[in-house]
């Protein structure tokens, strides 16, 4: 299977400098990763770990201090690549004096969409993000979640092949979050590539094919979600509610097969475990790449490292 890399990052570093050129923060350290066509890629990491910085570098909003970036086969500073990209910023940076219709109208014009198509698409998107009731209101009157929604609509106006979402679910209500997840899955089904940052690990686990965890600008973990999370030494059973009697029977069966009941309860969001372990480990031993299986930090043995560098 020939997979084409939509994003290629090689040894990317970013140092924020002040007006006088003095270095303030090293936001990224020698990051290398690829995103393949058609996958949903999640960038995770604690606050300030460099996720937004990575996205901005990919979009050419920031210039790398070192390293190389190619997006859709073009350098990040190239304007033409934007024809096929949709971007939802961390906070929706839109023109607050426009209303929802005007906003989409404006961004549609930047793509030179014909008037008819523009109107149709805008109408569709407004309905899709659930702002039909507020389409004529100026954005400055919008609530945070409503601004997020119109921001999302704006990112999709050109039917992009590559969608970059910076914390798409922040500020959304549970229904909105759910819809966002469905939408990302729909995009994936349509063969689009999605790169997203998020702090909602359960959602990331649900929608992402691959993830990378950044800590203080360094890549700590990268790999397929299912591989990273599957614990091959464990088997998890999920049944409908069992009474004590049934439970005792199950325990007996397990004992007969020489297995131990480790935990009984509701399945946990195991990405959360991975994330917390990664962060703990990175804090304890800065500068090292984290191998989830290498240590017993979280108590359970884990499979061989799934996070092999992609280069």
């Amino acid at each position: 299977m020939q997979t084409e890399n939509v994003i290629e990052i090689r040894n990317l570093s970013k140092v924020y400098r002040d007006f006088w050129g003095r270095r303030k923060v090293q936001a990224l350290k020698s990051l290398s990763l690829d995103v393949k066509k058609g996958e949903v890629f999640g960038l995770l990491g604690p606050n300030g770990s460099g996720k937004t910085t990575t996205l901005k570098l990919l979009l050419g909003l920031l210039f790398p201090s070192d390293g190389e970036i190619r997006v859709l086969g073009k350098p990040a500073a190239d304007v033409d690549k934007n024809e096929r990209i949709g971007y939802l910023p961390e906070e929706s940076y839109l023109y607050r004096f426009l209303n929802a219709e005007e906003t989409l109208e404006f961004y549609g014009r930047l793509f030179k969409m014909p008037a008819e198509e523009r109107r149709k698409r805008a109408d569709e998107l407004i309905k899709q993000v659930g702002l039909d009731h507020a389409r004529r209101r100026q954005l400055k009157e919008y609530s945070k979640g409503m601004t997020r929604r119109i921001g999302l609509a704006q990112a999709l106006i050109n039917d992009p092949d590559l969608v970059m979402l910076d914390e798409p679910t922040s500020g959304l209500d549970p229904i909105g979050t759910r819809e966002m997840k469905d939408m990302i899955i729909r995009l994936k089904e349509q063969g689009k590539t999605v790169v997203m940052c998020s702090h909602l690990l359960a959602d990331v686990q649900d929608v992402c094919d691959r993830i990378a965890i950044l800590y203080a600008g360094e890549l700590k973990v990268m790999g397929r979600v299912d591989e990273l999370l599957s614990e091959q030494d464990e088997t998890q059973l999920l049944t409908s509610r069992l009474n004590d009697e049934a439970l005792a029977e199950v325990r007996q069966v397990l004992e007969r097969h020489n297995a131990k009941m480790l935990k009984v309860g509701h399945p946990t969001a195991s990405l959360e475990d991975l994330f917390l372990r990664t962060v703990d480990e990175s804090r304890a031993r800065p500068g090292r790449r984290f191998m989830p299986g290498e240590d017993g930090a979280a108590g359970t043995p884990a499979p061989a490292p799934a996070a092999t560098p992609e280069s």
Partner: protein
Amino acid sequence: MNFNPLPYPIGQAVIFWLILFGSVTGIVLAIALFTSLVARGLKGPAAVLGQVRDFAVDMIRLSPRRVFALSSLTFKEAIRRKALLIFVVFALLFMFGGWFLSGTGERPDEQARVYISFVLRVIGWLTLPVVLLLSCWGIPEDIRARSLHTVVTKPARRNEIFLGRFLGFSAVGSIIVVIMGVVGYFWIVRQTPSDLVARVPRYGDLAFLDREGNPGRGVNVGDMWEFRSYVEGATRARGLWRFKDVYPGDNPDEGLVLESRFEAFRTHKGDMERGLLCELSFFNPETELRVRHRPFQVKEFSQNEIKIDRKLSMYDEETNTTKEVDLFDDLITDGTLYVEARAIDPGQYLGMARPDLFIRMANRPFYVGYAKAVFGIWMMAILVVALGVTASCFVKGPVATLLTLTFLIIGQGFREFMDRMVFQNLNNVLAGGGPVESWIRLIRHMNPQVPMEPGVSTSIIQFVDARMFDLLWIVQHIVPDFRHFRMAPYIANGFDVNFESAIVPGLAVMFGYLLPCLLLGYFSLKLRELEAK
């Protein structure tokens, strides 16, 4: 302050612009190539040339539709931010301006002049601050709110963003100027009792004959910076005008109307009841035919209209007969008319300058001249927008405002002073040396005529002064000459605004700055991270 419309040497100006623009771009490019070579080795110059290529590509692939989208956004923003509230100020000024200006009991033409100047000044003073603030704050605000992030991650090019802003604010400025212009027009027409017209002058060149009748300059009656030269009465001194392209008008029986605005300079009281007398004569150097016109009294500070009939009679001294002469057929060859002016009263002088005698062409309606004067304000507003948007591409709002304001002030108020300094320095007639030397002379109480003692310190002082003059020269050539947009003197003096000497220079200055502004704005937006800092 004299009203002296000179034809603008547009060809020369264009060549000068090309040289200046070419050399500045060349120098900047050379510096960029060199420093990038030093800093990054061979990759540096390649990157610099890549930027040049990107600019060319972006210019070629510029999309008018995107520019239009961005400029309508800019326009909408300005309107929704209530920029048009300026009309309230405008209305108030007019309501109360009328009280202060009217009823001064002056001559009607004087009063019209006051009203016209008032209206044009109000339009200028209200429009410029609005467009200045709008254009200086637009992009920085866009960067601060990061709304620009959402635009530059769409396929919008940096030149489109610059042009979109520029055109949007220009549209706002245009609306303000047009509405205020129209309202101002009706206000003037309503306030002035007399009929307003725009007189159309045709100017010639002027030469002088001295009191012996030899070519030379006129007499200087004392003021160094006097703009007129003086012709002594009852001598052979003359002011000699040459007018070109003088042809009969639509009505073949009509002659010409001349108008003079000579200044009378009396060395003795003479006859105070009447004005000094001036005699015009026409002559044709081909045929040596000379016709004297009857003398007229010079009324100062007002129009002296002299009607010249087509058929003139002259007294032929050789044949002692009166002959009839045709103005166009006998006195004018190839459309060239020579007019001599002399003063008649002995011991009295008439001050003359080039624009003091002109041929009056058919009048134009007042609104034509007025519209052109408003157009002058418009061009100035557009240039301010261009400068403001450019400045706002590389500095924040307050700094951009200050920078543009500085340009405006230097370009308008200090221009005269700066031009004089540079001119005197280049011609070595600047008494007392440059700024440092002047200070030292001031402190030491040294006479400006006394040379400085030669020595190391003097050499240093002179070196520093020379560099200061270089700097002044650069400033003089970089800051636009905003005086070119002042067309109010034309119509306040009752004239139409001349195309060659007023509109052309205005357009030249405006267009001359657009390309450099675009380049500067483009690269400022392209080479910086659009991150709020």
